[in-house]
């Protein structure tokens, strides 16, 4: 039954591409550090599989089959490229590996973590680390990664090529760093994963499938790191944080597609299963030494989700967590969040005082959340004119139409007339 065979072959190939792409790339690129050639060889192997498997049946160990074929393609490519003695040693080693892979039924070693550490190496431009991980671990093409990060496919492709060249030519190692360096280096891996997640999360309407998927992929990568480094509290913290955020995905819009701020969301719409998992992860992380930014941000989320039990958010806890986060990160974004918490515990005037300390920071001049927070606190403090002006700034800076409409509603409730 050729049709059935063909369907099975396609399904198997697709499942491997989904589950093991990064594993195969990591294995193929390990010796040469040449990611581009590993990816090329692997895509040729997948193409060969789609020809061979429908006719001859899916092999018993399809991953090993793909590896063997990809290795041969790599060797062919290397032979074409290099001649003479310098290639011989390399080729022999690779040929030995082909034989070893074909012979063994053993599990493919999982070097994805090493690959992620190479992609998020401090010698690689920070902005390209997340795209590079998405491409090499998950097999995203440059166009998909580009559209997720709002960069043209050609530009993204060029940047990815440059980063891969740097890995190969500068000799960036495919290694999990030593214990004494691990926490710091892991931080840049986690940052890249969070950046991927955040890109997906910032499409609240869920209208762009590619970006929505990115939030799922971020969580998938977070799970992968946790499974490979189960004793790293910040890895657990990041996964927990992403799951808390994801649990509220649907609640960010009402039935008409209008924006719902966190304070007005119906906790019944939050995904209880994801929250439970997030809570468990955060508890596990808290038993390990080393508190960091992701655990703290997850702890803030935890203080909000008590609302599903009918309590109000624990603002006192949230305020003190933000104070610690501010000390660690010095980030003005954290300071804004802290001002909102202070307003809840000590009144809007106290919150505004915190915001006033930030007023000179030029990074906030065009930062929507600063103006939205300011407007909200001014409104609560009864400073109607100043609040209306701050809402105006926030509206002008917002790109999401639903959020813009929400801010406009707030503003007109305040001044008693529609703005236009």
């Amino acid at each position, binding site marked *: 039954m050729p049709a059935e065979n063909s369907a099975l072959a396609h399904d198997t190939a697709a499942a491997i591409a989904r589950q093991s792409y990064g594993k195969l790339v990591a294995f193929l690129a390990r010796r040469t550090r040449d990611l581009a050639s590993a990816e090329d060889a692997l895509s040729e192997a997948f193409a060969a599989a789609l020809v061979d498997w429908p006719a001859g049946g899916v092999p018993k160990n399809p991953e090993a089959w793909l590896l063997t074929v990809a290795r041969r393609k790599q060797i062919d490519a290397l032979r074409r490229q290099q001649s003479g003695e310098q290639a011989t040693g390399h080729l022999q080693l690779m040929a030995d590996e082909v034989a070893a892979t074909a012979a063994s039924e053993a599990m493919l070693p999982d070097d994805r973590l090493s690959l992620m550490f190479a992609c998020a190496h401090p*010698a690689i431009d920070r902005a390209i680390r997340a795209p590079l991980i998405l491409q090499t671990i998950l097999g995203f093409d440059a166009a998909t990664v580009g559209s997720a990060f709002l960069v043209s496919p050609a530009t993204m492709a060029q940047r990815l090529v440059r980063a891969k060249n740097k890995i190969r030519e*500068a*000799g960036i*190692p495919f*290694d999990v760093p030593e214990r004494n360096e691990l926490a710091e280096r892991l931080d840049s891996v986690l940052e890249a994963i969070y950046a991927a997640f955040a890109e997906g999360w910032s499409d609240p309407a869920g209208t762009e499938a590619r970006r929505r998927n990115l939030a799922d992929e971020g969580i998938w990568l977070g799970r992968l790191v946790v499974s490979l480094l189960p004793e790293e509290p910040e890895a657990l913290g990041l996964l927990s944080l992403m799951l808390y955020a994801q649990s509220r995905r649907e609640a960010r819009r009402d039935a008409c597609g209008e924006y719902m701020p966190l304070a007005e969301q119906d906790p019944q719409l939050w995904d209880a299963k994801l929250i439970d998992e997030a809570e468990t992860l955060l508890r596990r992380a808290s038993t390990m030494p080393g508190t960091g930014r992701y655990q703290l941000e997850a702890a803030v989320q935890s203080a909000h989700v008590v609302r599903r039990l009918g309590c109000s958010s624990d603002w006192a806890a949230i305020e003190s967590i933000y104070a610690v986060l501010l000390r660690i990160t010095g980030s003005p974004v954290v300071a804004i969040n802290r001002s909102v918490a202070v307003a809840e515990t000590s009144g809007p005037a106290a919150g505004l005082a915190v915001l006033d300390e930030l007023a000179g920071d030029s990074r906030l001049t065009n930062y929507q959340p600063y103006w939205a927070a300011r407007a909200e606190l001014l409104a609560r403090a009864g400073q109607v004119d100043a609040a209306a002006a701050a809402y105006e700034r926030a509206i002008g800076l917002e790109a999401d139409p639903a959020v813009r409409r929400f801010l406009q509603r707030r503003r007109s409730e305040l001044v008693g007339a529609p703005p236009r």
Partner: protein
Amino acid sequence: MKYMLLIYENDDERVAMMDERMPHCAAYVETMKKAGIYLTGDRLRGATTATTVRVAGGKTQVIDGPYAEAKEQLGGYHIIDVPDLDTALAWAARCPSAARGSVEVRPIWPL
């Protein structure tokens, strides 16, 4: 892999302080030799001694001074042979000049 560590620092200060600082540099080089990674290296005379040559339109131009006028100048280099970039970076960080100026790490591209 072979890497060149290119040492950039305030050139006037480097030349003026050379005698005082030389023992640290010597100890650093000695340590790299003991580790079996050191290939070669040297210090350079001050940038005021530099002469730059350019051939434009078949005419040779000789210019007094370094390639680019800047306070920080190339003052020396080491070539080491280590397994990967991380190892090279670790050695670069131990270079006494890294605390004063910067050390650029570049892979050697064999001819």
